[in-house]
């Protein structure tokens, strides 16, 4: 049951700890339908854990996660049916061919046979995997595996895309296709939450950007709002990011390394 009046994703006071490490520290986050939200933050800031909690892969210690009007803890299967997910380092079944893997994914999401065939062929052609689809995935390059993982996430036409470093290892043409595809899906109401370290991509693609640091949500907003928050008018996302995360001491670090 999806209520369109509510945000597509709503995190309320969500926290997660691993032993003595705080991965996510009581964050609140609303993501609108059809929005592309970028999750930025240094390594270990809690981005991947946040994505996993939205999908129900990680159970929060406290707070609630509501996805497309469904409580992720109460009905995780209903949430998973609506979501396309690409993890940071997707491990695929390397003993299957690319085609067999996508066929498997199509069946997992119950896509009708003729529709599955049509979509798989379209994606294979678009991402230039034609000719290699019959080879075992173990022989694929990292970029080719990433393409297969991305197609798997798009194949069942999900309403929410959770993408952890989605453009990792992609060639420029394929990266452009994925970026354009995400933009084209926006008007259809498809929400995207993506984590990335490539700030230029986040700045160019995302409607809003959430900056995380040590599990906390430091800032959330569009570029204008982030500039205001950082008090850096006219600056780019890199300067804002470094200032907000308190990691702008780059020059001293480089000088120390060169000694």
């Amino acid at each position, binding site marked *: 049951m999806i209520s369109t009046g509510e945000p597509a994703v709503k995190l309320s006071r969500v926290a997660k700890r691993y032993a003595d490490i705080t991965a996510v520290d009581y964050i609140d986050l609303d993501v609108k339908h059809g929005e592309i939200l970028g999750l930025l933050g240094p390594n270990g800031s809690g981005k991947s854990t946040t994505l*996993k909690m939205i999908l129900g892969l*990680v159970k929060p210690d406290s707070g609630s996660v509501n996805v497309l009007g469904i409580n992720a803890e109460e009905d995780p299967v209903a949430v998973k049916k609506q979501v396309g997910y690409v993890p940071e380092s997707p491990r695929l079944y390397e003993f299957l061919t690319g085609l067999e893997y996508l066929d498997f994914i199509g069946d997992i999401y*119950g896509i009708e046979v003729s529709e599955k*065939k049509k979509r798989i062929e379209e994606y294979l052609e678009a991402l230039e995997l034609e000719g*290699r689809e019959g080879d075992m995935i*173990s*022989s694929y390059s990292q970029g080719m595996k990433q393409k297969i993982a991305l197609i798997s996430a798009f194949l069942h036409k999900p309403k929410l895309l959770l993408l952890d470093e989605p453009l990792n290892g992609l060639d420029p043409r394929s990266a452009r296709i994925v970026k354009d595809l995400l933009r084209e899906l926006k008007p259809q109401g498809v929400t995207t939450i993506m984590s990335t370290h490539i700030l230029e991509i986040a700045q160019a693609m995302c409607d809003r950007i959430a900056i995380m640091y040590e599990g906390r949500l430091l800032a959330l907003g569009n570029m204008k709002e982030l500039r205001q928050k950082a008090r850096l008018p006219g600056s780019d996302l890199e300067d804002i990011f470094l200032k907000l995360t308190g990691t702008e001491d780059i020059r001293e670090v480089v000088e120390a390394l060169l000694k």
Partner: protein
Amino acid sequence: MNWKNVLRLISVDIKAGRLIRGQRLRRYREQKIFQYLEYGGACILGLAIGIGAGSFYAAVADPQLKTLFYQGARSLFLSLPSLALIFSLVFTMMGQIQRMGVRSSLQPPYWLPITWEEHTLASTLANLIGVPLAFLILLSLAIATVSIYLGQMPLAALTIFALMASAFLASTTTEIFRILQVRLIGAVYKSTGKAAVWVRFVGSMLFFVVFYVVWFAFSSGMGSVALIEAVAGAQKAVWFVPYVWLGMVLAAFMSGLLAHTVIFSLASLLFILTLFYVAVRLNARFGLYELPAITVSRGVYVPKVGFLGKLGFSSLESAVMRKDFRAFTRRRELMYVFIMPVVFILMPLMQYLGIYGRPVEPEPSRFLFAWILLVPGAIMAVMLGLMIIGEEGGSVWLFFSSPITARSLVKCKYAFVIILSFVAMLVCGAIGILVAHPSPDIAIALLIESILLILALGAVSLGAGIKGADFTEAPRPRMVRPLTAFVYTLLCLVLALAIFSPLLLHAVTMGYMPVPVPLPKIDLYVAVSISAVVALVITFVFYRIALKNAEEFLLKAEM
């Protein structure tokens, strides 16, 4: 050669065991005591054996018995290099087989300033770490200690040296085999095209079967004294084979032939160095060889409309079952599931046909048929059930992120375990009927019994496989926690006895098995019916447990 680099590489290999031992990875602290426990145990046991045997020799008053013991010990020393060679070869090969198919964490660090000589030496020595090294320590200490009582210390020193050299020789041979098989497989893939998957499956099966049959025939076909005598005798007959030269060194030394001792020692050294050189050259040539892609399908994509769908499985369940079938026929580390039933048929058959040198039995026994029909299918159900979840490895994230319910997961995994075990049972049953010609009554009863065992044990082991799933993949896939596997294998054994006990009772009361007092006869079909009730209750209870475990597994989907 930079020896420090060799030691550093070996240390990396030892540390790879951390993943296998399943220690917590965050803020990792090594438990040194556990790391060296097996070697410490080997030291204590070796000393105890040496002191025990030596004290026995010292205490014996009868000169004839003393001479016999002395000759026996010398004979044992003589055969030890060849025995150590065979033992080390089997264990290092087994180690390689388990690592095959897994993207090893210990790839050659070719981008670092490390030479192929250093890498090959480290790899060869690292192959011996674990059971082979503990075994060598045990033997060496036992030999050294007992030699003090026998007054044979120079011979003991030479034997220990020959033992170490034999182990190194075996490990170098395994290293060469490892490199060659990768290159050979590459050539096979290229030449066989689409059939490569099946060529690899059949080839691996044949290799495993021959390997296990030879090993079992060697280790269980004769007693230990006969084995030592056979090895000592065979060594002399094939003195021209370089692998027995280390044994020949000892034989020459014992006979006081100094020139022969020196010649065979130098020849052995030269042979080991040559093999090591070959391993280094092969590593330099093929160490970074990438296997060519296996192309399984070409041409137009036609999605399969499943036969499984007609049997009542949803598209999701059918997809998981098809994927599992491909995993078990394409992943070499999973193929041993098919080998165990084959070995379990071959062993009694070889014994029955007199291949181990024992006399051929005049009439095939009922028990031979019962064994062939009951054991392989049941073993396959237990093995498959325990590993069917853990075999997902790192790809398990897909299960956690896809809309699969606990009910679907248990249904498709259980069905897969049962179907494959049924196939094994039917093939074994057909062979059993051809060999043993059982009566129709016995054949039908045992067939039903086998089905019941598979159903019940499949459910028990699946529940355990979900609860104790272990997704560690490097340096070898664990699939199930060892303690869970041990406890549930024992439980399966007890439950199998409980299911089979009515038939055993029938066999006893019918006089197939000797009993001191006559008992009232139990009809075969009454026994089978009681057995069926027991099996179905076990299946129902453990299927429910598997469902509960699957619910927890999917809820606690933390990776």
